[in-house]
């Protein structure tokens, strides 16, 4: 099982304390499972305990959600994830919009064994569900992107540790999602998070943190607002704890749909929220125990040291044929080191389930990581994988290997790079299926020239109002609803999850599962006819509004 060429990437490593922590947590959960099986714990009592260990009860089986903190995985870890899929599930895993991986066919009795397997490779499922601080996410290009101010992962790791079994915040009004970004280009959907931290530089040239709160999707979408314009680095945990405390004390507990911090933020107003947080922050800072010393930040940062890049490489892209050139056009992002690139592997080959990978595919990607990307891969919130540090000259070999895996679609950011939640095929909460709709649309737009002609267009599909498929943030969003036992699909236009975040507008009545892909196609045709030079779909929509799109979308349906 151990690959002799296995490369150890520069990422956080557990020490004896971290290791003991996750192992004790497994033993604790094994005891809770046993108490559930003997009936000592009722399902009602067991539920929050299992959720805080990543275990859901879905339509057909238990689902286990494993944390991939800030989306960073080593090849050793990916091989272990493949092994778990092979041994305990149906040979595949599903990468989620929160950079996690889910296994959909898990047996309760196997869960302690799976958690032990994870603990051995410095992984866990702690707080991937439940009304607590969830697994922290980050920009998938962290440490590699040319546009980055600082790598967000050291802070994300510090937040991971601070939030792990934080005794005060395990029974919050509702779940709490935190994301960290280190670049002015937001690739982590910061503005849709309960709390987001953006690394910024102030006028004096010093870096610190801008903190935002109250973003979220679900049935009441909100864009996050700034609560701390510039929080000094050593204050960040105290500031975040202040936000958490205000939320824990005052977030609504009488109505599950009004319990997120976005509702509290808007009920109090951002000014009042800021006033209360600042009072709390001053008190916590006075106690002093949560201050983050520079030495600690430096110590964690050292784990994420920039790899020793080869110097003197050419920035030129190798010539390896038109297919390769197409792939480079969409799936390669500028790297900060000359002659290097960031390569996105879209798990979105038209017809496939977005975000799914088989054990074999994971194993081969692990080999690619070792051979070409210093043993490292990233999981993105758009349900793709990323090789963060590859030499331009190696790209043709990587592309050839990905082709064999059927993961070489040159569609990153294009119309077939669709986000979709698991939907009614798996999920207990869903009203409608998402996966078949994603597959239908992807197949409709399979023609590559057409995709490139359309350009950047983000379609995001949710099977219910909870919005796990980020439909509010899609340039084109699709929301599955149930009308008297029949699945219908509403269209939303004009959403964005990037630094220009906006909430999509609902077009009108829903389409049937047979109509929706056609409606999307007609909407896209309107864009192609109306766009000005250089305009993305989103830009055209923002310029001309809903009317023309709406008329076209319902045209054939009405006829």
């Amino acid at each position, binding site marked *: 099982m151990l690959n002799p060429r296995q490369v150890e990437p520069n990422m956080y490593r557990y020490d004896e304390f971290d290791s003991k922590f996750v192992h004790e947590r497994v033993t*604790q959960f094994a005891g*809770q499972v046993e108490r559930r099986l003997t009936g000592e714990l009722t399902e009602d009592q067991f539920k929050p305990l299992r959720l805080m260990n990543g275990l859901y009860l879905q339509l057909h089986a238990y689902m286990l959600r494993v944390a991939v903190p800030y989306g960073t995985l080593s090849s050793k870890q990916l091989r272990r994830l493949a092994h778990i899929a092979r041994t305990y599930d149906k040979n595949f895993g599903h990468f989620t919009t929160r950079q996690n991986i889910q296994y959909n066919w898990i047996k309760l009795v196997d869960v302690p064994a799976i958690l032990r397997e994870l603990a051995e490779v410095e992984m866990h499922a702690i707080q991937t569900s439940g*009304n607590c601080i969830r697994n922290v996410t980050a920009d998938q290009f962290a440490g590699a992107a040319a546009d980055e101010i600082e790598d967000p992962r050291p802070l994300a790791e510090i937040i991971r540790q601070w939030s792990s*079994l*934080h*005794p005060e*915040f395990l*029974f919050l009004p509702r779940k709490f999602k935190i994301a960290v970004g280190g670049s002015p280009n937001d690739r982590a959907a910061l503005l849709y998070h309960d709390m987001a931290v953006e690394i910024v530089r102030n006028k004096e040239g010093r870096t610190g943190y801008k903190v935002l709160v109250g973003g979220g999707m679900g049935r009441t979408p909100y864009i996050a607002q700034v609560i701390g314009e510039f929080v000094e680095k050593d204050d960040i945990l105290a500031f975040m704890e202040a936000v958490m405390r205000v939320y824990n004390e005052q977030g609504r507990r009488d109505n599950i749909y009004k319990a997120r911090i976005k509702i509290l933020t808007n009920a109090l107003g951002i000014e009042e929220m800021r006033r209360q947080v600042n009072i709390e922050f001053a008190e916590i800072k006075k106690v002093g125990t*949560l201050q983050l010393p520079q030495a600690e930040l430096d110590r964690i940062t050292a784990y994420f040291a920039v790899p020793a890049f080869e110097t003197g490489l050419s920035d030129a892209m190798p010539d390896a044929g038109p297919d390769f050139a197409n792939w480079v056009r969409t799936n390669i992002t500028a790297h900060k080191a000359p002659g290097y690139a960031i390569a996105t592997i879209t798990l979105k080959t038209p017809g496939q389930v977005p975000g799914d990978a088989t054990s074999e595919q994971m194993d081969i990607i692990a080999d690619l990581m070792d051979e070409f990307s210093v043993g490292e891969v990233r999981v993105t919130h758009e349900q793709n994988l990323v090789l963060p540090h590859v030499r331009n000259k190696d790209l043709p070999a990587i592309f050839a290997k990905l082709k064999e895996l059927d993961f070489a679609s040159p569609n990153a950011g294009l119309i077939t790079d669709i986000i979709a939640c698991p939907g009614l095929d798996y999920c207990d909460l869903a009203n409608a299926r998402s996966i078949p709709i994603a597959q239908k649309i992807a197949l409709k737009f399979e023609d590559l020239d057409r995709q490139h002609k359309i350009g950047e267009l983000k379609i995001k599909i949710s099977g219910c109002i909870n919005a796990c498929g980020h439909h509010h943030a899609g340039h084109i969003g699709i929301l599955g609803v149930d009308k008297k036992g029949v699945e219908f699909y509403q269209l939303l236009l004009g959403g964005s999850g990037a630094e220009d975040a906006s909430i999509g507008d609902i077009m009108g009545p829903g389409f049937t599962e047979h109509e929706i892909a056609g409606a999307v196609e007609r909407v896209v045709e309107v864009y192609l006819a109306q766009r000005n030079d250089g305009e993305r779909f989103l830009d055209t929509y923002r310029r001309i509004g809903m009317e023309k799109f709406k008329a076209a979308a319902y045209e054939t349906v009405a006829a």
Partner: protein
Amino acid sequence: MTKLLKSGAFAADAFQATADDAALPDGPVIVSLARFEKERETLLARNTPIGVRLKSDENPTRLGDDVNRLSLVALEFPKFRDGRAFSWARLVRTRLGFKGEIRAVGDFLFDQLSYQHRVGFDAWEVPDHFTIEMFNAALAEMTNVYQPAADGKKTIRELRAH
């Protein structure tokens, strides 16, 4: 029925919980926050230990400096999923500097004891079948902690420095 577990051992409960409309009995009493606020002068003049019981939507900072004239603060868990009292306990212990008993009452799980202990609780009303062994086991499940709380326990960061 419940029994009182305090500072790691079962203890006799010296306090009498007193309803808002009942006459105050002699000796230590526990009253609601509403009653305490209404009859503050009388209660403080009694010269017997006083406890105040707070509902989960009552912020203990309302007690202000009076807290240090109390012997006990009881914090309610109306249902185990309602985690407000975790923050209230921290405020009472850390912010208000309360040295007396902080008692958990209401609906909470074995699996929450260690978190309650961390945020400042030192007394629990537990069901009759509960044992000291169970209490010790609950506190021993996780040896180390990542974040400072009200228990003064050394964090993993502090342990690493040694």
